[in-house]
């Protein structure tokens, strides 16, 4: 199949169609607006539905409705817009409805700025709405990986009846890279199931609802959700190790764009003989603790772990949980759209050896 040159945002839109999603509800915001711009052109070609909602609150509730009818559906936004979706997302997770959302993160807090950031990590991985729920969160580091993870997102959302977030910083959304799509044309719609509201003629009525009047029933529902999240944590972690970690003198942990910058720094340092490796979580939720711990355990005895983020330090909480006291932790991070350069990452690594 021939490669095409696409912006991350466009590629995410096309990947959704290839995954069988032809229902989009969203509202524009920089730096993710090319997702709806692309889909408004493409969806009519495949008989799909595109609605520009009046707000992000409306978008997520349209997703709630569409997902309830058993169609694959997508919304997309950037940080402040995702904040507005918190309540609706909690309802969707409570009702165990599959859907996919994209967060192309920009610098915060508040209105912040339009440049890339990774400062919605806590929001994405700690269930940013109310109640005991979890998302599955996938973090691509290239446009091709954005395509692959988008297709995976629809699979996972359907398999676990859970919302899945593709969480990328603005750089992944805005940059162009050659991509290849694994399939031609629009993908298959969601399989027949036992829960979707499709019209009850000739069968028992189905109900999608997150209100539980009995505390015992709600307790049971939470336990059922917890068991599902535990299963996801057991089966669905993904990660990459870059460089030789066995006996390395330092391990760097980074995701998304930051991981690519770290790779450039590692390439340089390795040619100088520095023993350094990168651990890159691809699933931010569930975090690949087991693989992370195995990687850390293989380092040289006193090797520190350096977390690098485009934030003031959020994923470092998970890195600490992963190490569970076994390693010394260091941090490098910038915010506001300032991105640590390969040179700065390399200098920081060297300062710790």
């Amino acid at each position, binding site marked *: 199949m021939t490669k095409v*040159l696409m912006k991350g945002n466009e590629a995410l839109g096309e990947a959704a169609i290839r995954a069988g999603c032809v229902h989009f509800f969203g509202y524009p915001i920089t730096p993710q607006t090319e997702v709806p711009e692309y889909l408004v052109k493409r969806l009519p070609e495949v008989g799909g539905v595109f609605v520009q909602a009046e707000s992000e609150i409306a978008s997520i509730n349209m997703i709630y409705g569409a997902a309830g009818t058993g169609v694959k559906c997508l919304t997309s936004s950037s940080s402040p817009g995702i904040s507005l979706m918190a309540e609706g997302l909690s309802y969707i997770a409570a009702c165990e409805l599959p859907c996919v959302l994209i967060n192309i993160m920009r610098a915060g807090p508040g209105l912040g700025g339009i440049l890339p950031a990774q400062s919605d990590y806590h929001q994405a991985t700690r269930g940013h709405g109310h109640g005991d729920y979890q998302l599955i969160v996938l973090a691509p580091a290239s446009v091709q990986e954005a395509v692959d993870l988008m297709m995976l997102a629809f699979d996972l959302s359907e398999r676990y009846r859970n919302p899945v977030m593709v969480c990328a910083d603005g*750089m992944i959304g*805005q940059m162009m890279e*050659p991509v290849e799509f694994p399939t031609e044309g629009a993908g298959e719609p969601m399989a027949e199931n036992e829960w979707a509201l499709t019209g009850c003629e000739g069968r028992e009525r189905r109900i999608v609802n997150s209100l539980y009047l009995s505390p015992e029933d709600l307790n049971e529902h939470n336990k059922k959700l917890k068991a599902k999240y535990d299963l996801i944590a057991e089966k669905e972690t993904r990660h990459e190790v870059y460089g030789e970690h066995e006996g390395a003198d330092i391990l760097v942990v980074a995701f998304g764009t930051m991981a690519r910058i770290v790779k450039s720094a590692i*390439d340089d340092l390795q040619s100088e003989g520095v023993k350094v490796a990168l651990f890159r979580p691809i699933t931010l939720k569930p975090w690949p603790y087991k693989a992370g711990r195995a990687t850390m355990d293989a380092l040289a005895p006193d090797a520190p772990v350096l977390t690098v983020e485009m934030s003031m330090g959020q994923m470092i909480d998970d890195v600490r949980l992963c190490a569970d006291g076994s390693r010394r932790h260091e941090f490098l991070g910038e915010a506001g759209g*300032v991105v640590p350069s390969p040179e700065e990452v390399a200098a920081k690594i060297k300062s710790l050896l």
Partner: protein
Amino acid sequence: MSPAAPQPIRAPGEQLVILVGAYGSGKTEVAVNLAIRWARAGLRVKLADLDLVNPYFRSREQQRVMEGHGVHVVVPPGKLAGADLPIVLPEVVGLLQPEPDTISLLDVGGDEVGARVLGSFRPNLHEGAYELWQVVNGSRPFTANPAGCHAIRAELEAASRLRVTGLVGNTHLIDETEVETVLGGWRLVEQVAKESGLPVRAVGIRNELAADPALAEITAPVLELDRRMLPPWIPGQSDGHGGCNRDRKPAPRPIGVPPRLRAQDSRGEVDGVHPD
């Protein structure tokens, strides 16, 4: 005025060149390279960044590099350069008036949305007093064939209320560009030229491929492209990077460039022009 470059890329008789094209066709990379090429050939060059639709990867990111080559760059001042606001400076209107020995370049945002801003300059632009070049990248989803390129051109002309006067071939896949990619792009733009009657003003080719003998069939002037709009993981460049680190000083202690990047980053000409 014909630029004294090895293979002249002419803006025949005129000194105002406006670059338009489908979203992501590479207008900015072409604009920045053309500006530097013409400036190095001894021309006075002014470039206005009129991209009102992209938040990242705009020609303003190369402001310091271009200014190092003597290009006068017109962009919103200070912090406003990083805003996603549709700012059009009054100075742009000045660029539309012919000036002796000066080439003015307008780098316009993509698609009809980006080209709409040109409509407001229509009263200042007379037929024959400007060159409007459509940049074509055949690796992009909506311009992979002549029909797609014609359709985009019609939209660009309707939005800008101007006529396209020439084509710039710019088919590439960034780091994965091969000679075949370039040749396929040349055949595409040649076909578009044949069907539309428009001349091919230039074909952009990455500098490491430009000398390949297999590209001899390209009869249009070749614009050798230095890749300038870089993502932040390619080290060693103080400007650019999609607008990140805009006001930051370059890292104090630059380290070497990884071998796989060296081919595209060791051209030398950018060195020595970092103003700080």
